[in-house]
Protein backbone atom coordinates (compact mmCIF):
# COMPACT_ATOMS: atom_id res chain seq x y z
CA UNK A 1 0.00 0.00 0.00
CA UNK A 2 3.01 2.24 0.01
CA UNK A 3 2.17 3.53 -3.46
CA UNK A 4 -0.56 5.59 -1.84
CA UNK A 5 1.69 8.08 -0.17
CA UNK A 6 4.84 7.89 -2.32
CA UNK A 7 5.01 10.44 -5.09
CA UNK A 8 8.05 10.20 -7.37
CA UNK A 9 9.83 13.52 -7.71
CA UNK A 10 12.38 15.25 -9.87
CA UNK A 11 14.45 17.97 -8.30
CA UNK A 12 16.03 20.92 -10.04
CA UNK A 13 18.20 23.63 -8.51
CA UNK A 14 17.72 26.93 -10.23
CA UNK A 15 19.39 30.10 -8.96
CA UNK A 16 19.37 28.96 -5.35
CA UNK A 17 15.77 27.71 -5.49
CA UNK A 18 15.02 24.04 -5.23
CA UNK A 19 12.25 23.17 -7.65
CA UNK A 20 10.27 20.02 -7.20
CA UNK A 21 8.38 18.26 -9.98
CA UNK A 22 5.99 15.32 -9.71
CA UNK A 23 7.63 13.25 -12.39
CA UNK A 24 4.81 10.76 -12.83
CA UNK A 25 2.21 13.49 -13.36
CA UNK A 26 4.43 15.26 -15.86
CA UNK A 27 5.20 12.15 -17.91
CA UNK A 28 1.53 11.09 -17.97
CA UNK A 29 0.38 14.59 -18.96
CA UNK A 30 2.88 14.58 -21.83
CA UNK A 31 1.58 11.20 -22.95
CA UNK A 32 -1.97 12.58 -23.01
CA UNK A 33 -0.84 15.69 -24.86
CA UNK A 34 1.05 13.56 -27.38
CA UNK A 35 -1.97 11.38 -28.05
CA UNK A 36 -4.18 14.45 -28.52
CA UNK A 37 -1.72 16.15 -30.86
CA UNK A 38 -1.36 13.01 -32.98
CA UNK A 39 -5.12 12.59 -33.04
CA UNK A 40 -5.63 16.23 -34.03
CA UNK A 41 -3.09 15.83 -36.82
CA UNK A 42 -4.67 12.63 -38.13
CA UNK A 43 -8.20 13.99 -37.94
CA UNK A 44 -7.48 17.18 -39.89
CA UNK A 45 -4.76 15.97 -42.28
CA UNK A 46 -6.92 15.24 -45.31
CA UNK A 47 -10.18 17.07 -44.77
CA UNK A 48 -12.75 16.00 -47.32
CA UNK A 49 -16.49 16.02 -47.89
CA UNK A 50 -16.56 12.25 -47.40
CA UNK A 51 -14.70 11.97 -44.11
CA UNK A 52 -12.11 9.29 -43.46
CA UNK A 53 -12.18 7.32 -40.22
CA UNK A 54 -10.10 9.80 -38.17
CA UNK A 55 -12.00 12.78 -39.51
CA UNK A 56 -15.31 11.06 -38.65
CA UNK A 57 -14.16 10.54 -35.09
CA UNK A 58 -13.23 14.21 -34.83
CA UNK A 59 -16.56 15.26 -36.31
CA UNK A 60 -18.47 13.10 -33.82
CA UNK A 61 -16.76 14.88 -30.93
CA UNK A 62 -17.25 18.35 -32.39
CA UNK A 63 -20.92 17.64 -33.09
CA UNK A 64 -21.51 16.28 -29.61
CA UNK A 65 -20.21 19.42 -27.92
CA UNK A 66 -21.30 22.09 -30.37
CA UNK A 67 -24.92 21.76 -29.31
CA UNK A 68 -24.06 22.03 -25.63
CA UNK A 69 -21.90 25.11 -26.16
CA UNK A 70 -24.40 26.92 -28.36
CA UNK A 71 -27.13 26.26 -25.77
CA UNK A 72 -25.05 27.78 -22.99
CA UNK A 73 -23.25 30.68 -24.68
CA UNK A 74 -24.65 33.43 -26.88
CA UNK A 75 -23.40 34.32 -30.38
CA UNK A 76 -20.50 36.52 -29.31
CA UNK A 77 -18.96 33.93 -27.05
CA UNK A 78 -19.09 30.84 -29.23
CA UNK A 79 -15.34 31.12 -29.79
CA UNK A 80 -14.85 29.41 -26.43
CA UNK A 81 -15.99 26.17 -28.05
CA UNK A 82 -12.46 24.85 -28.94
CA UNK A 83 -11.35 25.50 -25.37
CA UNK A 84 -14.28 23.59 -23.91
CA UNK A 85 -13.73 20.58 -26.17
CA UNK A 86 -9.99 20.57 -25.48
CA UNK A 87 -10.55 20.64 -21.72
CA UNK A 88 -12.91 17.70 -22.07
CA UNK A 89 -10.60 15.66 -24.28
CA UNK A 90 -7.58 16.24 -22.06
CA UNK A 91 -9.34 15.36 -18.81
CA UNK A 92 -11.21 12.45 -20.31
CA UNK A 93 -8.08 10.91 -21.79
CA UNK A 94 -6.24 11.54 -18.51
CA UNK A 95 -8.94 9.67 -16.59
CA UNK A 96 -8.84 6.79 -19.07
CA UNK A 97 -5.10 6.37 -18.72
CA UNK A 98 -5.36 4.60 -15.36
CA UNK A 99 -7.06 1.62 -16.99
CA UNK A 100 -3.83 0.75 -18.82
CA UNK A 101 -1.47 -1.17 -16.52
CA UNK A 102 1.68 0.75 -15.70
CA UNK A 103 0.19 4.13 -16.49
CA UNK A 104 -1.61 6.38 -14.03
CA UNK A 105 -4.03 9.29 -14.30
CA UNK A 106 -2.40 12.73 -14.20
CA UNK A 107 -5.70 13.94 -12.69
CA UNK A 108 -4.91 11.82 -9.62
CA UNK A 109 -2.47 14.56 -8.64
CA UNK A 110 -4.34 17.58 -7.25
CA UNK A 111 -2.07 19.93 -9.23
CA UNK A 112 -3.57 18.95 -12.59
CA UNK A 113 -7.25 19.56 -11.70
CA UNK A 114 -6.24 22.72 -9.85
CA UNK A 115 -4.46 24.04 -12.95
CA UNK A 116 -7.57 23.40 -15.04
CA UNK A 117 -9.81 24.89 -12.37
CA UNK A 118 -7.71 28.07 -12.32
CA UNK A 119 -7.69 28.16 -16.11
CA UNK A 120 -11.49 28.06 -16.22
CA UNK A 121 -11.74 30.62 -13.41
CA UNK A 122 -9.45 33.15 -15.10
CA UNK A 123 -11.05 32.68 -18.51
CA UNK A 124 -14.60 32.99 -17.17
CA UNK A 125 -13.79 36.24 -15.37
CA UNK A 126 -11.97 37.59 -18.42
CA UNK A 127 -15.00 36.71 -20.55
CA UNK A 128 -17.26 38.39 -18.00
CA UNK A 129 -15.28 41.64 -18.01
CA UNK A 130 -15.15 41.60 -21.79
CA UNK A 131 -18.86 40.97 -22.19
CA UNK A 132 -20.21 43.37 -19.55
CA UNK A 133 -17.49 45.93 -19.05
CA UNK A 134 -15.49 46.37 -15.88
CA UNK A 135 -18.13 48.52 -14.14
CA UNK A 136 -21.00 46.09 -14.49
CA UNK A 137 -18.65 43.24 -13.64
CA UNK A 138 -17.54 44.84 -10.37
CA UNK A 139 -21.04 45.93 -9.40
CA UNK A 140 -22.09 42.27 -9.31
CA UNK A 141 -19.94 41.74 -6.26
CA UNK A 142 -22.00 44.14 -4.17
CA UNK A 143 -25.27 42.32 -4.97
CA UNK A 144 -27.69 42.11 -3.22
CA UNK A 145 -26.12 44.43 -0.63
CA UNK A 146 -22.69 46.04 -0.32
CA UNK A 147 -21.58 44.10 2.76
CA UNK A 148 -22.01 40.87 0.83
CA UNK A 149 -18.84 41.66 -1.18
CA UNK A 150 -16.40 39.55 0.88
CA UNK A 151 -18.82 36.62 0.76
CA UNK A 152 -19.30 36.96 -2.98
CA UNK A 153 -15.53 36.94 -3.46
CA UNK A 154 -15.13 33.85 -1.26
CA UNK A 155 -18.00 32.26 -3.16
CA UNK A 156 -16.21 32.87 -6.47
CA UNK A 157 -12.93 31.51 -5.14
CA UNK A 158 -14.70 28.47 -3.75
CA UNK A 159 -15.68 27.54 -7.30
CA UNK A 160 -12.03 26.84 -8.12
CA UNK A 161 -11.69 24.72 -5.00
CA UNK A 162 -14.88 22.77 -5.59
CA UNK A 163 -14.35 22.06 -9.29
CA UNK A 164 -10.78 20.84 -8.85
CA UNK A 165 -11.26 18.86 -5.63
CA UNK A 166 -14.30 17.12 -7.13
CA UNK A 167 -12.27 15.72 -10.02
CA UNK A 168 -9.28 14.95 -7.83
CA UNK A 169 -11.37 13.22 -5.15
CA UNK A 170 -13.20 11.02 -7.62
CA UNK A 171 -10.15 9.90 -9.56
CA UNK A 172 -7.99 9.48 -6.47
CA UNK A 173 -10.79 7.62 -4.66
CA UNK A 174 -11.34 5.31 -7.62
CA UNK A 175 -7.68 4.46 -7.95
CA UNK A 176 -7.35 3.86 -4.20
CA UNK A 177 -10.29 1.51 -4.09
CA UNK A 178 -9.00 -0.41 -7.14
CA UNK A 179 -5.61 -0.76 -5.47
CA UNK A 180 -6.99 -1.82 -2.09
CA UNK A 181 -9.62 -4.25 -3.35
CA UNK A 182 -7.15 -5.81 -5.81
CA UNK A 183 -4.83 -6.32 -2.87
CA UNK A 184 -7.57 -7.86 -0.72
CA UNK A 185 -8.75 -10.34 -3.38
CA UNK A 186 -5.24 -11.03 -4.75
CA UNK A 187 -6.20 -9.59 -8.12
CA UNK A 188 -8.94 -12.15 -8.77
CA UNK A 189 -12.20 -11.43 -10.64
CA UNK A 190 -13.07 -7.99 -9.20
CA UNK A 191 -10.34 -5.62 -10.54
CA UNK A 192 -11.55 -5.55 -14.19
CA UNK A 193 -15.08 -4.68 -13.07
CA UNK A 194 -13.76 -1.99 -10.74
CA UNK A 195 -11.58 -0.57 -13.51
CA UNK A 196 -14.56 -0.47 -15.82
CA UNK A 197 -16.69 1.33 -13.23
CA UNK A 198 -14.19 3.79 -11.71
CA UNK A 199 -11.88 4.17 -14.71
CA UNK A 200 -14.18 4.21 -17.72
CA UNK A 201 -17.58 5.15 -16.28
CA UNK A 202 -16.81 7.53 -13.42
CA UNK A 203 -13.83 8.92 -15.37
CA UNK A 204 -16.05 9.86 -18.31
CA UNK A 205 -18.79 11.34 -16.12
CA UNK A 206 -16.38 13.43 -14.09
CA UNK A 207 -14.61 14.71 -17.21
CA UNK A 208 -18.02 15.74 -18.55
CA UNK A 209 -19.04 17.36 -15.25
CA UNK A 210 -15.79 19.31 -15.10
CA UNK A 211 -16.22 20.53 -18.68
CA UNK A 212 -19.87 21.47 -18.20
CA UNK A 213 -19.09 23.41 -15.04
CA UNK A 214 -16.32 25.34 -16.82
CA UNK A 215 -18.83 26.11 -19.57
CA UNK A 216 -21.49 27.16 -17.07
CA UNK A 217 -19.06 29.42 -15.21
CA UNK A 218 -18.25 31.20 -18.48
CA UNK A 219 -21.93 31.40 -19.38
CA UNK A 220 -22.96 32.82 -15.97
CA UNK A 221 -20.25 35.46 -16.17
CA UNK A 222 -21.16 36.58 -19.68
CA UNK A 223 -24.90 36.92 -18.98
Amino acid sequence: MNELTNVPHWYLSLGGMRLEFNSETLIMSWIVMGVLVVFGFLATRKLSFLPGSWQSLGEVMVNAFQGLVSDALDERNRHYFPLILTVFLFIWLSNMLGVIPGLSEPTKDLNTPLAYGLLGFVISHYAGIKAKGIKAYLSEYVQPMFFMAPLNIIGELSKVVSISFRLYGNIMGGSIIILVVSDLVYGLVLPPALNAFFGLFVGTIQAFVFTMLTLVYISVQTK
Partner: protein
Amino acid sequence: MPFSTETWVQAAAFLGAGFSVGFGAIGAALGEGYAAGNASRAIGKNPAMSGPILKNMLIGQAVAESAGIFALVIAMLLAFMSTEGAPMIEAWALLGSGLAMGLSAIGSGAGGGFPAAEACMGIADNPSTQGALTTNMLIGSAVSQTPAIFGMVVAFMLMFIDWSSQPLWPGWAAVLGAGLAVGLAAIGSGVGSGMPAGSATAGMARQPAAATTIRTNMLIGSAVSQTPAIFGMVVAFMLMFVDWSNSPPWPTWAALLGAGLSTGLSAIGPGIGNGFTAQEASAGIARVPEASGPVTTTMLIGQTVAQSTVIYGFLVSLILLFIPREASESMVAWVAPLSAGICMGFGGIGPGVGEGLAAAYTVNRIARDYEGVSVLLTRVMLVGQAVSESTGIYSLIVALLLLFVI
Protein backbone atom coordinates in the same frame (compact mmCIF):
# COMPACT_ATOMS: atom_id res chain seq x y z
CA MET B 1 -5.64 -2.43 34.84
CA PRO B 2 -3.41 -0.37 32.53
CA PHE B 3 -3.48 -1.17 28.83
CA SER B 4 -0.56 -0.94 26.46
CA THR B 5 -0.60 1.56 23.58
CA GLU B 6 -0.96 -1.31 21.15
CA THR B 7 -4.15 -2.45 22.86
CA TRP B 8 -5.61 1.03 22.64
CA VAL B 9 -4.81 1.25 18.93
CA GLN B 10 -6.32 -2.18 18.38
CA ALA B 11 -9.45 -1.15 20.28
CA ALA B 12 -9.73 2.05 18.24
CA ALA B 13 -9.42 0.06 15.02
CA PHE B 14 -12.31 -2.17 16.09
CA LEU B 15 -14.38 0.84 17.13
CA GLY B 16 -13.62 2.52 13.81
CA ALA B 17 -14.65 -0.62 11.94
CA GLY B 18 -17.91 -0.63 13.86
CA PHE B 19 -18.62 3.04 13.15
CA SER B 20 -17.71 2.61 9.50
CA VAL B 21 -20.07 -0.17 8.60
CA GLY B 22 -22.63 0.74 11.25
CA PHE B 23 -23.23 4.26 9.99
CA GLY B 24 -22.44 3.26 6.42
CA ALA B 25 -25.23 0.73 6.33
CA ILE B 26 -27.94 3.28 7.16
CA GLY B 27 -28.05 5.20 3.92
CA ALA B 28 -27.66 2.35 1.45
CA ALA B 29 -30.45 0.42 3.15
CA LEU B 30 -32.79 3.41 3.02
CA GLY B 31 -32.03 4.08 -0.61
CA GLU B 32 -32.49 0.47 -1.63
CA GLY B 33 -35.72 0.16 0.29
CA TYR B 34 -37.07 3.28 -1.40
CA ALA B 35 -36.11 1.84 -4.79
CA ALA B 36 -37.75 -1.49 -4.00
CA GLY B 37 -40.94 0.16 -2.80
CA ASN B 38 -41.23 2.19 -5.95
CA ALA B 39 -40.44 -0.86 -8.07
CA SER B 40 -43.46 -2.57 -6.48
CA ARG B 41 -45.63 0.46 -7.22
CA ALA B 42 -44.35 0.47 -10.79
CA ILE B 43 -45.08 -3.21 -11.31
CA GLY B 44 -48.53 -2.71 -9.84
CA LYS B 45 -49.14 0.04 -12.37
CA ASN B 46 -47.83 -1.83 -15.38
CA PRO B 47 -47.50 -5.59 -14.69
CA ALA B 48 -46.50 -6.29 -18.30
CA MET B 49 -43.16 -4.57 -17.67
CA SER B 50 -42.38 -6.47 -14.47
CA GLY B 51 -39.25 -8.14 -15.91
CA PRO B 52 -37.46 -4.93 -17.01
CA ILE B 53 -38.56 -3.08 -13.86
CA LEU B 54 -37.16 -5.81 -11.62
CA LYS B 55 -33.89 -5.84 -13.56
CA ASN B 56 -33.65 -2.06 -13.40
CA MET B 57 -34.37 -2.10 -9.66
CA LEU B 58 -31.56 -4.57 -9.04
CA ILE B 59 -29.03 -2.55 -11.08
CA GLY B 60 -30.07 0.66 -9.33
CA GLN B 61 -29.83 -0.93 -5.90
CA ALA B 62 -26.38 -2.30 -6.72
CA VAL B 63 -25.09 1.21 -7.46
CA ALA B 64 -26.84 2.68 -4.40
CA GLU B 65 -25.16 -0.01 -2.34
CA SER B 66 -21.65 0.94 -3.43
CA ALA B 67 -21.38 3.48 -0.59
CA GLY B 68 -22.18 0.66 1.82
CA ILE B 69 -19.56 -1.51 0.13
CA PHE B 70 -16.91 1.21 0.52
CA ALA B 71 -17.78 1.24 4.23
CA LEU B 72 -17.45 -2.53 4.36
CA VAL B 73 -14.00 -2.42 2.71
CA ILE B 74 -12.80 0.18 5.22
CA ALA B 75 -14.25 -1.80 8.11
CA MET B 76 -12.49 -5.00 6.97
CA LEU B 77 -9.18 -3.19 6.58
CA LEU B 78 -9.57 -1.61 10.04
CA ALA B 79 -10.52 -4.88 11.67
CA PHE B 80 -7.60 -6.84 10.25
CA MET B 81 -4.89 -4.22 10.15
CA SER B 82 -1.68 -4.77 12.03
CA THR B 83 -1.23 -2.36 14.92
CA GLU B 84 2.21 -3.46 16.05
CA GLY B 85 4.30 -0.65 17.46
CA ALA B 86 1.78 2.00 16.41
CA PRO B 87 1.92 5.26 18.39
CA MET B 88 -1.09 6.44 20.40
CA ILE B 89 -2.10 9.01 17.79
CA GLU B 90 -2.74 6.13 15.38
CA ALA B 91 -5.69 5.15 17.59
CA TRP B 92 -7.39 8.49 17.00
CA ALA B 93 -6.58 8.35 13.29
CA LEU B 94 -8.24 4.94 12.97
CA LEU B 95 -11.28 6.16 14.87
CA GLY B 96 -11.45 9.18 12.56
CA SER B 97 -11.07 6.93 9.54
CA GLY B 98 -14.08 4.83 10.53
CA LEU B 99 -16.17 7.92 11.22
CA ALA B 100 -15.19 9.57 7.93
CA MET B 101 -16.24 6.57 5.89
CA GLY B 102 -19.32 5.63 7.90
CA LEU B 103 -20.87 9.08 8.12
CA SER B 104 -20.09 9.97 4.52
CA ALA B 105 -21.78 6.81 3.25
CA ILE B 106 -25.14 7.78 4.83
CA GLY B 107 -26.03 10.49 2.35
CA SER B 108 -24.76 8.84 -0.80
CA GLY B 109 -26.55 5.59 -0.08
CA ALA B 110 -29.86 7.35 0.49
CA GLY B 111 -29.30 9.65 -2.50
CA GLY B 112 -28.62 6.74 -4.84
CA GLY B 113 -32.11 5.45 -4.12
CA PHE B 114 -33.92 8.40 -5.74
CA PRO B 115 -32.84 7.79 -9.36
CA ALA B 116 -33.34 4.03 -8.97
CA ALA B 117 -36.90 4.55 -7.73
CA GLU B 118 -37.79 7.08 -10.41
CA ALA B 119 -36.32 4.90 -13.15
CA CYS B 120 -38.60 2.02 -12.08
CA MET B 121 -41.64 4.31 -12.10
CA GLY B 122 -40.60 5.78 -15.43
CA ILE B 123 -40.30 2.37 -17.08
CA ALA B 124 -43.84 1.57 -15.96
CA ASP B 125 -45.20 4.84 -17.33
CA ASN B 126 -43.26 4.95 -20.58
CA PRO B 127 -41.73 1.55 -21.43
CA SER B 128 -40.12 2.79 -24.66
CA THR B 129 -37.65 4.98 -22.71
CA GLN B 130 -36.32 2.04 -20.73
CA GLY B 131 -32.73 2.19 -22.05
CA ALA B 132 -32.38 5.95 -21.59
CA LEU B 133 -33.80 5.75 -18.07
CA THR B 134 -31.43 3.00 -16.96
CA THR B 135 -28.45 4.92 -18.37
CA ASN B 136 -29.49 8.12 -16.66
CA MET B 137 -30.13 6.28 -13.40
CA LEU B 138 -26.61 4.84 -13.55
CA ILE B 139 -25.05 8.24 -14.24
CA GLY B 140 -27.14 9.97 -11.57
CA SER B 141 -26.48 7.46 -8.85
CA ALA B 142 -22.78 7.21 -9.73
CA VAL B 143 -22.50 11.00 -9.37
CA SER B 144 -24.27 10.90 -6.03
CA GLN B 145 -21.62 8.45 -4.75
CA THR B 146 -19.02 11.22 -4.99
CA PRO B 147 -19.40 12.47 -1.37
CA ALA B 148 -18.87 8.91 -0.13
CA ILE B 149 -15.74 8.71 -2.29
CA PHE B 150 -14.46 11.91 -0.65
CA GLY B 151 -15.01 10.31 2.74
CA MET B 152 -13.22 7.20 1.55
CA VAL B 153 -10.17 9.15 0.33
CA VAL B 154 -9.82 10.79 3.75
CA ALA B 155 -10.45 7.46 5.51
CA PHE B 156 -7.65 5.79 3.56
CA MET B 157 -5.29 8.67 4.25
CA LEU B 158 -6.05 8.53 7.96
CA MET B 159 -5.43 4.80 7.90
CA PHE B 160 -2.23 4.56 5.90
CA ILE B 161 -0.29 7.77 6.48
CA ASP B 162 2.27 7.51 9.26
CA TRP B 163 1.09 9.98 11.91
CA SER B 164 4.03 9.57 14.28
CA SER B 165 5.46 12.93 13.15
CA GLN B 166 2.46 14.72 14.70
CA PRO B 167 2.45 15.10 18.48
CA LEU B 168 -0.35 13.28 20.31
CA TRP B 169 -1.54 16.63 21.67
CA PRO B 170 -3.14 18.33 19.73
CA GLY B 171 -2.66 15.87 16.85
CA TRP B 172 -5.40 13.54 18.09
CA ALA B 173 -7.97 16.30 17.66
CA ALA B 174 -6.67 17.04 14.16
CA VAL B 175 -7.10 13.48 12.88
CA LEU B 176 -10.44 12.97 14.63
CA GLY B 177 -11.63 16.38 13.44
CA ALA B 178 -10.61 15.51 9.87
CA GLY B 179 -12.75 12.40 9.97
CA LEU B 180 -15.73 14.27 11.41
CA ALA B 181 -15.38 17.17 8.96
CA VAL B 182 -15.51 15.11 5.80
CA GLY B 183 -17.96 12.54 7.19
CA LEU B 184 -20.59 15.00 8.42
CA ALA B 185 -20.19 17.29 5.42
CA ALA B 186 -20.89 14.44 3.01
CA ILE B 187 -24.30 13.58 4.53
CA GLY B 188 -26.21 16.51 3.08
CA SER B 189 -24.42 16.50 -0.24
CA GLY B 190 -25.01 12.81 -0.73
CA VAL B 191 -28.76 13.15 -0.29
CA GLY B 192 -28.78 16.43 -2.19
CA SER B 193 -27.01 15.16 -5.26
CA GLY B 194 -29.38 12.20 -5.49
CA MET B 195 -32.48 14.44 -5.63
CA PRO B 196 -31.89 16.02 -9.07
CA ALA B 197 -30.90 12.59 -10.39
CA GLY B 198 -34.32 11.30 -9.33
CA SER B 199 -36.35 14.14 -10.79
CA ALA B 200 -34.29 14.15 -14.00
CA THR B 201 -34.93 10.45 -14.50
CA ALA B 202 -38.64 10.99 -13.91
CA GLY B 203 -38.59 13.93 -16.31
CA MET B 204 -36.92 11.91 -19.03
CA ALA B 205 -39.71 9.35 -18.93
CA ARG B 206 -42.18 12.17 -19.52
CA GLN B 207 -40.16 14.12 -22.09
CA PRO B 208 -37.66 11.78 -23.81
CA ALA B 209 -36.87 14.31 -26.55
CA ALA B 210 -35.27 16.70 -24.05
CA ALA B 211 -33.04 14.03 -22.52
CA THR B 212 -29.72 15.78 -23.23
CA THR B 213 -30.85 19.13 -21.79
CA ILE B 214 -32.28 17.46 -18.70
CA ARG B 215 -29.14 15.38 -18.12
CA THR B 216 -26.82 18.38 -18.45
CA ASN B 217 -28.89 20.32 -15.92
CA MET B 218 -28.96 17.29 -13.61
CA LEU B 219 -25.17 16.98 -13.69
CA ILE B 220 -24.64 20.66 -12.98
CA GLY B 221 -27.22 20.62 -10.18
CA SER B 222 -25.73 17.50 -8.57
CA ALA B 223 -22.20 18.80 -8.90
CA VAL B 224 -23.07 22.10 -7.19
CA SER B 225 -24.90 20.22 -4.43
CA GLN B 226 -21.59 18.49 -3.70
CA THR B 227 -19.73 21.72 -3.01
CA PRO B 228 -20.47 21.60 0.76
CA ALA B 229 -18.89 18.13 0.93
CA ILE B 230 -15.83 19.50 -0.85
CA PHE B 231 -15.50 22.19 1.82
CA GLY B 232 -15.49 19.40 4.39
CA MET B 233 -12.78 17.57 2.48
CA VAL B 234 -10.63 20.71 2.21
CA VAL B 235 -10.89 21.28 5.98
CA ALA B 236 -10.00 17.63 6.56
CA PHE B 237 -6.90 17.99 4.37
CA MET B 238 -5.82 21.11 6.25
CA LEU B 239 -6.29 19.35 9.59
CA MET B 240 -4.27 16.37 8.39
CA PHE B 241 -1.40 18.03 6.58
CA VAL B 242 -0.59 21.12 8.64
CA ASP B 243 2.17 20.48 11.18
CA TRP B 244 0.68 21.07 14.64
CA SER B 245 3.81 20.34 16.67
CA ASN B 246 4.57 24.04 17.22
CA SER B 247 1.14 24.97 18.59
CA PRO B 248 0.45 24.79 22.30
CA PRO B 249 -1.51 21.55 22.99
CA TRP B 250 -4.00 23.42 25.19
CA PRO B 251 -6.22 24.97 23.82
CA THR B 252 -5.27 24.11 20.20
CA TRP B 253 -6.92 20.70 20.40
CA ALA B 254 -10.30 22.30 21.06
CA ALA B 255 -9.84 24.67 18.13
CA LEU B 256 -9.00 21.78 15.79
CA LEU B 257 -12.00 19.74 16.87
CA GLY B 258 -14.17 22.84 16.59
CA ALA B 259 -12.86 23.50 13.08
CA GLY B 260 -13.87 20.02 11.97
CA LEU B 261 -17.33 20.30 13.52
CA SER B 262 -17.98 23.79 12.20
CA THR B 263 -17.59 22.96 8.51
CA GLY B 264 -18.83 19.39 8.86
CA LEU B 265 -22.14 20.25 10.54
CA SER B 266 -22.81 23.46 8.63
CA ALA B 267 -22.41 21.61 5.32
CA ILE B 268 -25.35 19.30 6.00
CA GLY B 269 -28.03 21.94 5.44
CA PRO B 270 -26.72 23.55 2.24
CA GLY B 271 -26.13 20.10 0.74
CA ILE B 272 -29.78 19.13 1.17
CA GLY B 273 -31.02 22.62 0.26
CA ASN B 274 -29.04 22.66 -2.97
CA GLY B 275 -30.49 19.26 -3.73
CA PHE B 276 -34.06 20.60 -3.45
CA THR B 277 -33.24 23.46 -5.81
CA ALA B 278 -31.59 21.18 -8.35
CA GLN B 279 -34.49 18.75 -8.12
CA GLU B 280 -37.03 21.42 -9.05
CA ALA B 281 -34.76 22.70 -11.81
CA SER B 282 -34.50 19.29 -13.46
CA ALA B 283 -38.24 18.73 -13.09
CA GLY B 284 -38.97 22.17 -14.51
CA ILE B 285 -36.75 21.68 -17.55
CA ALA B 286 -38.40 18.34 -18.19
CA ARG B 287 -41.73 20.15 -18.26
CA VAL B 288 -40.60 23.12 -20.38
CA PRO B 289 -37.28 22.36 -22.10
CA GLU B 290 -37.13 25.86 -23.65
CA ALA B 291 -36.79 27.33 -20.15
CA SER B 292 -33.45 25.64 -19.56
CA GLY B 293 -31.40 28.86 -19.80
CA PRO B 294 -33.22 30.99 -17.18
CA VAL B 295 -33.89 27.94 -15.00
CA THR B 296 -30.21 26.92 -14.87
CA THR B 297 -29.10 30.48 -14.14
CA THR B 298 -31.65 30.94 -11.35
CA MET B 299 -30.77 27.53 -9.94
CA LEU B 300 -27.09 28.45 -9.77
CA ILE B 301 -27.79 31.83 -8.14
CA GLY B 302 -30.14 30.24 -5.61
CA GLN B 303 -27.69 27.46 -4.82
CA THR B 304 -24.78 29.86 -4.40
CA VAL B 305 -26.76 31.95 -1.90
CA ALA B 306 -27.94 28.83 -0.07
CA GLN B 307 -24.32 27.80 0.29
CA SER B 308 -23.41 30.89 2.25
CA THR B 309 -23.88 29.20 5.63
CA VAL B 310 -21.33 26.52 4.81
CA ILE B 311 -19.02 29.33 3.71
CA TYR B 312 -19.51 30.91 7.17
CA GLY B 313 -18.71 27.53 8.68
CA PHE B 314 -15.60 27.29 6.53
CA LEU B 315 -14.60 30.81 7.57
CA VAL B 316 -14.94 29.92 11.26
CA SER B 317 -12.88 26.77 10.61
CA LEU B 318 -10.13 28.79 8.97
CA ILE B 319 -10.07 31.23 11.89
CA LEU B 320 -9.92 28.32 14.34
CA LEU B 321 -7.13 26.63 12.39
CA PHE B 322 -4.84 29.49 11.52
CA ILE B 323 -5.17 32.25 14.12
CA PRO B 324 -2.51 31.39 16.70
CA ARG B 325 -3.62 30.83 20.27
CA GLU B 326 -1.74 31.43 23.49
CA ALA B 327 -0.98 28.43 25.65
CA SER B 328 -3.53 28.30 28.45
CA GLU B 329 -5.06 25.52 30.46
CA SER B 330 -8.00 27.54 31.73
CA MET B 331 -11.49 26.28 31.08
CA VAL B 332 -12.56 29.30 29.00
CA ALA B 333 -9.59 29.03 26.66
CA TRP B 334 -10.65 25.65 25.35
CA VAL B 335 -14.41 25.76 25.72
CA ALA B 336 -14.75 28.98 23.70
CA PRO B 337 -13.24 27.73 20.40
CA LEU B 338 -15.01 24.38 20.68
CA SER B 339 -18.36 26.08 21.24
CA ALA B 340 -17.69 28.49 18.40
CA GLY B 341 -17.31 25.54 16.05
CA ILE B 342 -20.40 23.78 17.38
CA CYS B 343 -22.44 26.99 17.30
CA MET B 344 -21.61 27.78 13.68
CA GLY B 345 -21.97 24.14 12.67
CA PHE B 346 -25.50 23.62 13.97
CA GLY B 347 -26.50 27.16 13.07
CA GLY B 348 -25.70 26.52 9.44
CA ILE B 349 -27.99 23.54 8.99
CA GLY B 350 -31.40 25.22 9.01
CA PRO B 351 -30.70 28.25 6.80
CA GLY B 352 -29.09 25.99 4.19
CA VAL B 353 -32.23 23.86 3.85
CA GLY B 354 -34.56 26.85 4.09
CA GLU B 355 -32.81 28.90 1.44
CA GLY B 356 -32.63 25.85 -0.78
CA LEU B 357 -36.42 25.46 -0.52
CA ALA B 358 -36.95 29.14 -1.33
CA ALA B 359 -34.81 28.72 -4.44
CA ALA B 360 -36.55 25.44 -5.33
CA TYR B 361 -40.04 26.95 -5.50
CA THR B 362 -38.74 30.00 -7.34
CA VAL B 363 -37.11 27.78 -9.96
CA ASN B 364 -40.33 25.80 -10.22
CA ARG B 365 -42.34 28.94 -11.01
CA ILE B 366 -39.74 30.31 -13.43
CA ALA B 367 -39.86 27.05 -15.38
CA ARG B 368 -43.62 27.51 -15.85
CA ASP B 369 -43.45 31.13 -16.92
CA TYR B 370 -39.89 31.88 -17.91
CA GLU B 371 -40.61 34.87 -20.13
CA GLY B 372 -42.81 36.87 -17.81
CA VAL B 373 -41.78 37.00 -14.22
CA SER B 374 -38.28 35.60 -13.95
CA VAL B 375 -36.58 38.86 -12.86
CA LEU B 376 -39.25 39.64 -10.28
CA LEU B 377 -39.16 36.09 -8.90
CA THR B 378 -35.36 36.07 -8.68
CA ARG B 379 -35.50 39.29 -6.67
CA VAL B 380 -38.15 37.88 -4.31
CA MET B 381 -36.05 34.73 -3.92
CA LEU B 382 -32.96 36.71 -2.96
CA VAL B 383 -34.85 38.77 -0.39
CA GLY B 384 -36.47 35.67 1.08
CA GLN B 385 -33.16 33.89 1.25
CA ALA B 386 -31.49 36.87 2.91
CA VAL B 387 -34.18 36.85 5.62
CA SER B 388 -33.99 33.12 6.23
CA GLU B 389 -30.23 33.43 6.40
CA SER B 390 -30.43 35.76 9.38
CA THR B 391 -30.29 32.88 11.88
CA GLY B 392 -27.13 31.66 10.19
CA ILE B 393 -25.68 35.14 10.57
CA TYR B 394 -26.62 35.13 14.28
CA SER B 395 -24.63 31.92 14.65
CA LEU B 396 -21.69 33.49 12.85
CA ILE B 397 -21.84 36.53 15.14
CA VAL B 398 -21.96 34.39 18.28
CA ALA B 399 -19.10 32.24 16.98
CA LEU B 400 -16.98 35.32 16.27
CA LEU B 401 -17.84 36.74 19.71
CA LEU B 402 -16.75 33.48 21.32
CA LEU B 403 -13.51 33.58 19.36
CA PHE B 404 -12.47 37.18 19.66
CA VAL B 405 -14.25 38.83 22.59
CA ILE B 406 -14.25 36.22 25.31
